[in-house]
């Protein structure tokens, strides 16, 4: 079973994404902030990281940067954020994100993108 780490500070969205991905047959690990996200990434290997940009303690850009700089260079990263301004998107891609979705988003679209990213990794 594929393991996906979801970092999102909005509990409702976190639970909804998790529910949706569980139904698709993925194992989902949920975290509410950037610090916890980095800790989980250190502890375990994941097949995909879905992260928000604005989170407490450490933001999404920093998470991407650390993940790409230190280790697990192959873990695909999907950014899911309401901050869809051009500079945010470009910065995320520049740091090493593989995909970007702007909120509000469609869960169907999210599932398709997740499937694609996991296939690319394989």
């Amino acid at each position, binding site marked *: 079973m594929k393991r996906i780490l979801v970092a999102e500070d909005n509990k*409702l*969205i976190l*639970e*909804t994404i998790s529910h949706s991905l569980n139904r698709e047959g993925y194992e989902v690990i949920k975290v509410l902030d950037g610090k916890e996200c980095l800790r989980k990434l250190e502890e375990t290997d994941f097949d995909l990281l879905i992260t928000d940009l604005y989170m407490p303690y450490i933001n999404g850009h920093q998470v991407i940067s650390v993940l790409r700089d230190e280790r697990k260079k192959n873990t695909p990263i999907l950014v899911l954020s309401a901050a869809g301004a051009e500079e945010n998107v470009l910065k995320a891609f520049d740091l090493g994100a593989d995909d970007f979705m702007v909120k509000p*988003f469609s*869960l169907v*679209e999210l599932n398709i993108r997740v499937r694609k990213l996991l296939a690319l990794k394989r």
Partner: protein
Amino acid sequence: MNPIKFTSVKLIILIGCMSCAINLLYTPGSYGSTNIPGSIAGEIGQSIQINDSVKQARELAVQALKTDSVKIIRDKNISTTKTEDHVKKNSSRLNKRNNYLFLLINGNKNAGEIKSDLIIYGNKHLPLSFRRPYFRIIEKAYNYPVILLFILFIFFFSLNILFVLLVLYYSNQRKNRKDRYTRIFQKMYEDVLRSYLFGDIDWEKALAKLKKIKKSLNRKILITVLFNFQDNLTGEMDSQIVGIFVKLNLYNDALKSTRSSHYYNKINGIHELTNLYPEVAEKIVQQFINDPNDLVRAEAQTSYIRLHPDKPFDFFKSLTSPFTRWTQVSAFYLFRLHQLPVPSFAQYMDSPNPNVRNFCLRMITYYQQLESANEIYRTLDNQLELTRFLSIHAISELRLFQGKDLIKKRYPFETQKNRIEIITALKNIGNADDFDFLESIIHSDSITLRTEACRTMYYMSSESRERLFLLKQESHLKIEQYIDYITDPRN
């Protein structure tokens, strides 16, 4: 710290303070036990109190207290001079200690003198209406021992603090209880609605699981959850969320809010309807477009833009209230965010509302609506300086060369700000025909206008720059200095 324990500690401190004050009051020689007007006499009286054998002196002191004068003691011939000497010795020793604070504040002045000084001050400096209570306070202060007033003050102050602490404690408890309640129900509603949105349960089952939804607070929580879903999710779920809002009759709550006398309820109502039940909102929003409250009006106007993507600014036709600058910014932001089709803003240029006309001029300039040229020329004669300024600016930015002669004709009648804008506009739309006009400005007295004219001539074209350099020959114009100034990147 536990609030109850804290309160009891405060009570103990209060009792301690009161007992200390009472001790002070009954301590022989305490300054607080004397009346201020007869303070000196009182002090003598106290010293006599120590020496029990001298009753006559004490009587004199009491008399002095009543008449507010020390002189009585001095005027009376006391036969027992020995006793008097003894009393004086004692009193001077005690006075040294007891009067220290009094002397520190007041120097050598008699208490009666302070009273009269205070009254004179009141008569001189205070308004008539304040004088009466002011004199009453002075009288009271002189009739009661200060320490008693001080104790009363401490007592009421402590009572006040106690009351505030109790209010804080209970309001905090109430808030915590409400927060806990909200958290529990929010989580429950989120879970139920998520299950329903994902099709895990049907509507009947979901409805049975949505507990206490008849309560006003619970309905508010439910609306918050729906908002949260709608803010983050699109697609099929979006329409399902609107369906839930309608099925639970939550729109009635929103409608009720719009009828509230409180502006924030109205705003909430408009916001909820716009996002969750646009069909009803369309009918409601129009009536708040000219609301006397700025915030309600702004919410209604931005809602209108969201609800009418095909004609987002049609409310201008009925807008008679001000269209505030920050609402203009919000409207522009919304308009761009939702990528709505740009209407022709010239159609609203006949609006009697100057805010609308100015906004339209800005939008015409931003979206480069060249077809609105005639409407722009018409506003050059407007009474408002800002409207004329925006019109000149539009002519410049849209490169409307036909408008050049119009703005040049207006130049002598314009304000300084608009004159500068006309000169600046020539930088974009000027040519060799305008050199004489600009030269005449360079020969004028205003340094600002001369600077702008030099700038325009310098940057308009190579010909104009040459013409400007020719003016260097006229040494009194000091053209070199102006050129240095305008070519400096800091300017």
